[in-house]
């Protein structure tokens, strides 16, 4: 079953096409990577999918429903969550409150119930706090709930961003370079975390430069270059594909590699 379907998706900026007629089908399970050199359009693609940037052309369907015209917050309410390449936490809020905002679409108490502090509202808040704590536990931050988000280290902040996105149990999670700036040990932990996210039933779309991380984790790989999709297949196929090697290493190096292979 296809969870996310992109058709001819494009985004033009003055003088440049950041995303150029991209087609992509993401099935409703597993980890799917989008890779490509710097400036290939990966973040723009994520912004298009999450609704933060409007497409110049093309369509986006989530779970068979056309969401191309839907605002970002409405898409989030349909079960689409994301993290950002540069961490964007709510700095003054506590770690637990950050995780709680991830549950925002799931909380239904009316303003009247909130003001009257009805039994239903208090129960909902208790459940929300329990779920937010579960999300924090998943990323190893269960003991830091009361601290300001700004007090976290870089690696912890990245993990909190994932917990915040996961608190609402989304269908699709977009991770934009989650391993960037992490040390090798933290990267291994992150891999385990992504696995457990997938096991919990959330599909992951992953942008990442760390090839070892991508290849070890992904079920499929899509390669972008200059906004265009130049490859889609398994990690093993990606490694052997001349166009992918060329995009990453430049034409000259690729030619030499192939030359030496033939010699």
């Amino acid at each position, binding site marked *: 079953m296809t969870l996310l379907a992109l058709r001819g998706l494009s985004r033009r900026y003055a003088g440049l096409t950041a995303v150029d007629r991209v087609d992509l089908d993401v099935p409703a399970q597993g980890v799917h990577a989008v890779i490509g050199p710097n400036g290939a359009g990966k973040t723009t693609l994520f912004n298009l999918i999450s609704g933060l940037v409007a497409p110049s052309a093309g369509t986006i369907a989530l779970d068979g429903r056309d969401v191309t015209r839907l605002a970002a*917050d409405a898409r989030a309410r349909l079960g689409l969550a994301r993290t950002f390449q540069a961490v*964007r936490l709510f*700095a003054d809020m506590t770690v637990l409150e950050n995780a709680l905002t991830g549950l925002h679409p799931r909380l239904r108490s009316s303003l009247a119930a909130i003001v009257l502090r009805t039994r239903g509202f208090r129960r909902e808040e208790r459940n929300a706090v329990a779920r937010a704590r579960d999300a924090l536990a998943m990323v190893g931050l269960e003991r830091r709930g009361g601290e300001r988000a700004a007090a976290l280290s870089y690696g912890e902040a990245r993990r909190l961003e994932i917990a915040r996105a996961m608190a609402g149990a989304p269908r699709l999670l977009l991770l934009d370079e989650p391993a960037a700036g992490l040390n090798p040990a933290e990267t291994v932990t992150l891999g385990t975390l992504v696995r457990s996210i997938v096991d919990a039933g959330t599909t992951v779309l992953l942008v990442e430069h760390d090839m070892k991380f991508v290849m070890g984790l992904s079920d499929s790989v899509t390669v972008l270059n200059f906004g265009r999709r130049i490859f889609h297949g398994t990690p093993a196929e990606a490694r052997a594909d001349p166009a992918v090697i060329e995009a990453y290493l430049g034409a000259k190096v690729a030619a030499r590699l192939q030359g030496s292979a033939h010699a």
Partner: protein
Amino acid sequence: MSVPPWLSDLFWTYQNVVVSLGVNGLLALSMYVVLAAGQLSLGQAAFMGLGAYASALLTLRLHAPFWAVLPAAMLVPVAFALLVGGPTLRLAGVYLAIATIGLGEVLRAVYLNVDALGGALGLSGIPEAAPLWLIYALLAAALLVFWRIGRSRVGRAMEAMRSDETAALAMGVNVRRYRLATLVASAALAGLAGALSAHSTDFIGPNDYGFEPAVSILSFALLGGIGSPIAPVVGAVVLTLLPELMRGFAELRLILNGVVIVLAVLFLPRGLVAWRMRRRAA
């Protein structure tokens, strides 16, 4: 038996300050609710003026009972908030501030030039129908409501959008709806404060709701802070009492407000009451 003039003087002075404290507390909360959602409105005085004029006209011209006047004093500024907010809230940040300054200036010109609205003379003979207890009961109720809302998904969403609007959108916060709702709540509260103050003073004029009071109301929240609903009310109390303690320097009021804003921004970025309330109810 006659009351000595000095005693009666003292009473009236005291009475005015007590009314002002309550009314300014409500105005501070009306400022708080927009700032808490990450917006800047300079229209609080304009909304207050709409409430004051609407209520005074209903009382003077239609002899409407006071209890019926209060809801109208909230609805009229709400209608204007929707009018100004609807289009500007699509646009980011500073447009709301500009549009609300514009609203205040336009309304001042209207009050001044429309004879039916009293013109330059304003409206006088407004009965002092607002009981003191009511002003304070409404202030306490508004505090309680904002306190409770602050400790719920709504308070979290508001702080989230103030902190990072893009991330809040990605979390599913309907930022536009929150912007409009907070502006509407703010206008209703300011209108209520306007009606209460108009019905405590007997006279209102076109210059009572211009740019200067708009800046004063902003300075309540800047001085007090917005970490909790109590903070801006503390700011209002300080800035209402300070000029009373410096009687004779009444002309310095605007300068004092300016100095307070500058000092607060430079040295107290979180306000006098820097404490931040917890944003959950469980």
